[in-house]
């Protein structure tokens, strides 16, 4: 690990499904303590990019670098690489057959070799932080969407990953519940977490992100500080996209 290399480096990543090219050569860096927001219309490849970074998809070209190490190489054990990353999915993906506590302690205990006591203590702290200290024994099906998503975030944080990936974490939630999840993410960002997130919440991206990247047609079209990309975009495609968002009353 070298100090000057970014936590995450995406280099010319290409991903195709069948004949369709979803990512057409994406380049992106995320540095330590940086929060990067990916914006773009549905189908622009935001989620696919996050899945590629987490090595859940085979790349068709390009590289994923974690702390300067190429983890997309087929000779590298993806499970080892994933230990440094946490991902939160759009539709929570909690394990319905496990209690909230077991969902959170699973990876620390089974993958990272933490003892049950330590894992449960850490889980209790995390649940406290996400405001669900009293729901440790509940099962996911008995929680609201916002609560489930906060548990999912706690699960991803349980082994203190260097990089947190958030895949449209609020798009399956109703507006009332969006607030509780966003304030949690805001707090994580304030604590210096390194975060790469795909989001439809432009106002949120503007407040929290250090950098906003606009994805279109499988490429990063525009990238920069939120005031610039969201306030005075250079590229015509970005302007079109933002105009549509403003017309829909979402900025």
């Amino acid at each position: 690990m070298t100090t000057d290399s970014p936590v995450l480096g995406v280099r010319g990543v290409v991903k195709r499904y069948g004949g369709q090219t979803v990512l057409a050569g994406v380049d992106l860096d995320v540095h330590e303590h940086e929060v990067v927001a990916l914006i773009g219309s549905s189908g622009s490849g935001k989620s696919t990019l996050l899945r590629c970074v987490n090595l859940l998809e085979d790349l068709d070209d390009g590289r994923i670098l974690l702390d300067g190490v190429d983890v997309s190489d087929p000779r590298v054990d993806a499970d080892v690489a994933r230990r440094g990353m946490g991902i939160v999915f759009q539709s929570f993906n909690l394990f319905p057959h496990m209690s909230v506590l077991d969902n959170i302690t699973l990876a620390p205990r089974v993958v990272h070799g933490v003892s049950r006591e330590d894992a449960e203590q850490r889980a209790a702290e995390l649940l406290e932080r996400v405001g669900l200290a009293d729901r440790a024994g509940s099962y996911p099906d008995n929680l609201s969407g916002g609560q489930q998503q906060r548990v999912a975030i706690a699960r991803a944080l349980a082994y203190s990953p260097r990089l947190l990936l958030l895949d449209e974490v609020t798009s399956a939630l109703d507006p009332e519940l969006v607030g509780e999840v966003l304030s949690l993410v805001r707090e994580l960002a304030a604590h210096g977490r390194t975060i790469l997130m795909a989001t439809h919440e432009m106002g949120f991206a503007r407040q929290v992100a250090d950098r906003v990247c606009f994805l279109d047609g499988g490429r990063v079209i525009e990238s920069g500080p939120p005031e610039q990309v969201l306030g005075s975009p250079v590229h015509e495609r970005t302007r079109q996209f933002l105009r549509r968002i403003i017309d829909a009353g979402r900025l």
Partner: protein
Amino acid sequence: MAVVGGQRSRAEVTVSELQRERLAYKRSRSRRSTVVALLSTTVFAVVGYFTVTRSPGWPRVRDSFFDPAVAWRSLPAVLEGLWLNLRVLLVCGTLILVLALAVAAVRTLRGPVWFPLRLLATAYVDLFRGLPLIILLYLVGFGLPALRLAGVPNDYVVLGGAALVLAYTAYVAEVFRAGIESVHPSQVAAARSLGLNPQKTMRLVVLPQAVRRVLPALLNDFVALQKDCGLISVLGAVDAVRAAQIEQARSYNFTPYVVAGLLFVLLAVPSARFADAVSRRAERRQGGR
């Protein structure tokens, strides 16, 4: 691997040197796995072959279990018996599916009115799932006709089939019930919210999902039934097993049993492959993105 490779070459626009090297590495890995699989299979087969043929009793065993002449002579009779097994299988299989679905539906009925029916179904399942099949065959095959009731058939094939239906309906009903109960309550809520009554909810929303989910288990029971059809021979019906026994008694050679056994295995292979295909299809449908 070959399919993926073919797809790539079609969509090949500009592949970087790095990716070309990675693909070559993956191809070499898959070639290596194939070679390892081939080697280990060969070693296993050779060791197995020599362990059996070098054993001291092998010549005797070969003569009394694997005599080609006896096998050929007994084949027509055993095949004719197998044809009976097949007919029993098809009739019983159909009956079992229908009856088991009914029993499962009764067991999942809610409401106090249905209590006696529910109790009856539960008692039936408990009794016939617990009773050893061979005892059930004797009771139905020899006990039932002995009552000399009017209308009770005394054909051993029919009686044997009835015993099989009684036993397997109990098993399959439990498989169906597990499937029905695995469908998430939200599905019932969604169907009821659209105005479907409980029966329509069950028939149009719950059962299709339940059956799809338990299909591998059902096919497993179907293969078990295929073999157990051979048990009607204990009542005296001349099926494949019985025919083999007759041939064995005539030739003092056990080869006909091996012939019958192999035919049963052959019968089970298509079902097993079909079950695999069904599970794979279900997996594909759930997987992807």
